[in-house]
């Protein structure tokens, strides 16, 4: 007994086909503009395209060249550093804030609103605010010095070795409130009777969270990981606004690399190859997730 309304096999063809007709524009759009384009870019990654698409096949040459380019190596390393710090710190802050907010806090709604508002902002706005706040000439360093601590130094954003961490700071600021909301929803979904039972068994608050509550937040951790990982790989706007990929190429990420090689340096074949690698890494995370989601709902 299916959960749906089956149309009648009548002679009225139009009536029966109407639902599919209504769906078809969206399906065509997605097939062409998502999957067709993915295929096109994938194809370009095996061609000698430079400033314009060209269809001369060159095999794996773009990929082998890509991995020999220093900037790409930096971009990948940066993504690993940025991605892991971003995910771990966001989860730690998000979980801690969620647990603290779940202690019958006064004005909880108000505090939640404050924690979450950065999610409503554009990364360009976030980037602008943090760019000047971290700028040694006028921002934090200058302020602290003007307060009398003359030797205070905070120049990460100008420092090739440290600049990538300023991106982590701004990105965590933007999304950790959202991660908090995910964990809070998970916490609210835990059966209170289980907690009461554990309290009667003599568990301390610490043991309660470590042994009972946090293990039950597995789905929330999964969701947070998938969302954050996918945002990390796609990160583009924030880098552009905050550091522009600099100093030099110190904060280059795959997304900025792809853009500059394709549109500024006219190496479209290499740009397409880097985009393909980005897609593959996102697919590796998203496909199992979507798959399990759709199967559950059957």
């Amino acid at each position, binding site marked *: 007994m299916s959960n749906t309304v089956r*149309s009648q096999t009548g002679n009225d063809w139009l009536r029966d086909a109407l639902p599919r007709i209504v*769906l078809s524009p969206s399906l065509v759009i*997605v097939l062409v503009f998502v999957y067709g384009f993915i295929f096109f*870019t994938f194809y370009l990654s095996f061609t000698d395209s430079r400033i314009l698409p060209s269809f001369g096949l060159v095999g794996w040459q773009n990929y082998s060249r890509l991995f020999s380019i220093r900037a790409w190596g930096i971009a990948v390393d940066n993504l690993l550093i940025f991605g892991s710090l971003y995910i771990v710190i966001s989860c730690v802050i998000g979980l801690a804030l969620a647990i603290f907010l779940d202690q019958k806090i006064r004005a909880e709604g108000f*505090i939640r609103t404050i924690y979450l508002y950065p999610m409503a902002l554009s990364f360009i706005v976030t980037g602008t*605010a943090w760019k000047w706040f971290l700028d040694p000439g*006028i921002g934090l360093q200058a302020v602290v010095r003007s307060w009398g601590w003359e030797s205070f130094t905070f120049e990460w954003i100008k420092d090739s070795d440290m600049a990538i961490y300023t991106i982590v700071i701004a990105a965590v600021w933007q999304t950790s409130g959202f991660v908090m909301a995910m964990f809070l929803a998970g916490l609210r979904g835990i059966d*209170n009777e289980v907690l009461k039972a554990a309290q009667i068994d003599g568990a301390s608050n610490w043991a309660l969270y470590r042994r009972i509550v946090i293990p039950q937040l597995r789905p929330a951790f999964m969701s947070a990981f998938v969302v954050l990982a996918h945002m990390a790989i796609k990160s583009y706007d924030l880098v552009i606004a905050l550091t522009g990929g600099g100093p030099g190429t110190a904060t280059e990420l795959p997304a900025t690399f792809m853009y500059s090689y394709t549109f500024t340096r006219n190496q479209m074949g290499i740009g397409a190859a880097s985009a393909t690698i980005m*897609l593959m890494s*996102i697919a590796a995370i998203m496909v199992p997730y979507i798959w399990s989601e759709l199967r559950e709902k059957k």
Partner: protein
Amino acid sequence: MATNASSNVIRTGAGARFVIYAILILFCLYYLLPLYVMVVNSLKPLDEIRSGGMMALPSQWTIAPWQSAWSTAQIGVDATGLRPYFLNSILMVVPAVAISTVLGALNGYVLTKWRFRGDTIVFGLLLFGCFIPFQMVLIPMARMLGLMGIAGTVPGLIFVHLVYGIGFSTLYFRNYYQQFPTELVRAAMIDGAGFFMIFRRIMLPSSGPIAVVCIIWQFTNIWNDFLFGASFSDFDSQPMTVALNNLVQSSTGVKEYNVHFAGAIMAALPTLLVYIVAGRYFVRGLMAGSVKG
């Protein structure tokens, strides 16, 4: 997370509660800090910022940076201020949000109440389209917009956002309509209502909350987009985010931080307002787009 009054049964001592409140307030300051910096510095003259006074309230209040950012600041080659780009963003957002929401509602309706063989695969295809890195479509899309004759125009941007917004709006409505009792649709069929009549008279009147969620999500996403704006617009069709970035990154002349901050607030204001007015729906949308269920 609506009005979630039910807190857990865990009790904490007074000392622990003090520490918890202290930490929570500290994080409030952390999240509010950039907003504070933007607001106060957009209201003070440039030399107050330069002399290390970023954290201080303005000693001399001024709205000149706002006026400059809005109507006279140098963006690219012209000293037009952000006003024309703000208008571009509005012209882009309104149709893109409206059309993608309507299509999403219809798709969700078909995918849950008029199911057919392979509908789950269709939905899976739509869903995956939400999460692809858009770098993967930039090159062919640039060509396609050229072929369609809308490259570098606001209609071109509307089209792009529409195309990549359908997935999410379909996701919202599908998950919502899945909870909608199918027996109601069956009852309406027996009563003689057809496909569109059932949608209009039975489904739509109950779709208010999810429509709000979807509209807010699309509005926020499209307004805040930078990648498509940067890739597919010309000087006169740039959206707000791109113009703001141009303003801030411009390498010529003196860096007018106070004007940058005023511009940043302008770019943030529409989505912030939506968040303040309808934050509940915004959070619901975020969760529905990420969390199972």
